């Protein structure tokens, strides 16, 4: 099963949440995932299927599962659903705190890349959500990540802010050798960014569809995205739904 040289190779036999007093919940079951270096994986699936749990296992935040994780990466950059910036540190200090390179030029380049030069001295509380997400993305790039993990980083932004953030992400990925794992509910977003689309089943989550999107990201246009979207929507509705009733792809996961 295991592929040599994979950036991430994960086998989960099962992941159970034993909440008290609630009954145990099986979040993930019988899931295998192998991601090659440089791939951009979009993880999709219905609400509560364990996408965030999967990310927590991938990043090492959750080690309480039955299975095995092999990760080549040295540095992980993560953008959480809420930006999780330190409210008492400026944007610049938030980024500098995790930065792998103390040279001022390195920090400046990242701030420029993410369009944060004018906001560097502000505190997170003074920023819009879109700006905070950009700061969180800049922080993730400041560790020079070989694995970049995005947990619904574009959710609850207006179209313009989300578009800008996606543009920043694409620019920052140019010339870097990062493997990306992104959770999203937005098929168009997945189609415009990812090189591979993985669809999880309803809880307990396992891989039900694994689609490689051939065309280079830069070469994709509206027409291509539209065509693929039409093609995949029915597959997703069919595969990711509990028997018979098609589940809507919710925007929010608890």
């Amino acid at each position: 099963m295991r592929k040599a040289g994979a950036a991430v190779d994960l086998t989960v036999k099962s992941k159970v949440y034993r909440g008290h007093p609630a009954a145990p919940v099986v979040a993930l079951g019988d899931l295998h995932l192998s991601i090659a270096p440089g791939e951009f994986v979009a993880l999709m699936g219905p609400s509560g299927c364990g996408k965030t749990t999967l990310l927590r296992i991938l990043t090492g935040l959750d080690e309480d599962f039955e299975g095995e994780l092999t990760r080549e990466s040295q540095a992980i950059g993560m953008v959480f659903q809420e930006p999780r910036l330190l409210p008492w540190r400026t944007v610049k200090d938030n980024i500098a705190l995790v930065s792998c390179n103390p040279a001022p030029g390195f920090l400046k380049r990242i701030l420029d890349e993410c369009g944060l030069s004018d906001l560097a001295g502000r505190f997170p509380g003074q920023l819009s959500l879109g700006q905070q997400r950009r700061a969180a993305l800049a922080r993730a790039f400041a560790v020079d990540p070989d694995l970049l993990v995005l947990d619904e980083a574009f959710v609850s932004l207006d179209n313009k802010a989300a578009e800008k953030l996606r543009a920043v992400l694409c620019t920052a990925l140019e010339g870097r050798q990062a493997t990306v794992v992104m959770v999203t509910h937005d098929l168009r977003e997945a189609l415009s960014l990812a090189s591979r689309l993985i669809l999880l089943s309803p809880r307990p989550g396992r891989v039900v569809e694994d689609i490689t999107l051939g065309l280079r990201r830069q070469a994709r246009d509206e027409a291509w995205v539209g065509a693929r979207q039409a093609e995949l929507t029915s597959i997703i509705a069919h595969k990711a739904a509990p028997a018979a009733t098609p589940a809507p792809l919710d925007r929010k996961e608890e």
Partner: protein
Amino acid sequence: MAFDRPDRARRALIRAASLVSLVLIWQGAAALARSPLLPAPTAVIGFVIAEAAGGDLLRQLGITLFRVAASFTAAMLIGGAIGIALGQDKRLNLWFDGWLIVLLNLPALVVAVLAYVWLGLTEAAAIAAVAINKIPTVAVTLREGTQALDPGLDEMARVFRLSWRARLLHVTLPALAPFISAAARSGLALVWKIVLFVELLGRPSGIGFAIHLNFQLFDLTAVLGYSLAFMAIMLAVEYLIMEPIDRYAQGWRRR
């Protein structure tokens, strides 16, 4: 709260006026009573100046300040460490919660007497007695603070592999700043009162000793003079040290 400059100036003026009126009331009452049992503020201030110039006042003040600083620092460090540990570890908290409640309700007098009996009438006993009185309240305050920490930021620190030092300096301590500040400010007031008490009980020096001595001589001008001098210093510490530190640490909230 944020105040504009003119607003702050007005606030300071109101504070000063309020203090001045207190002194005036005292002066009036002393003039009415005309008794050595209620010396006028002018007499007390005169005593303070004379004692500071030629007498023992500055030495006694210095000794008491040293004891306040030592016991306050010890209580903040030890109480803080205990509070953070209990806040982070539920089992530890379950084990030691009861101890904290016992310590919280231990009278200061008992702690002081036991410290002097066990450690002798020494400087270490005095400082330990004061610190032990303060440690449980610091621990309880910081335990609440630690339990209220954002687990999301902790996860962030783990993913980005921050060193324990960076976590402490940039994640934990800034988040705890309001709790540390509350513990420090209520602590300082409590500590200096207990220091005076411990001095009265078993030290041959310090403001508490001087007050005790003058009480036995029935010299109320000296009693009030020593208290006043020390209160003035503690007020200065509050306004010139504690408040600016607090403003600096909480500065990000007001932007």
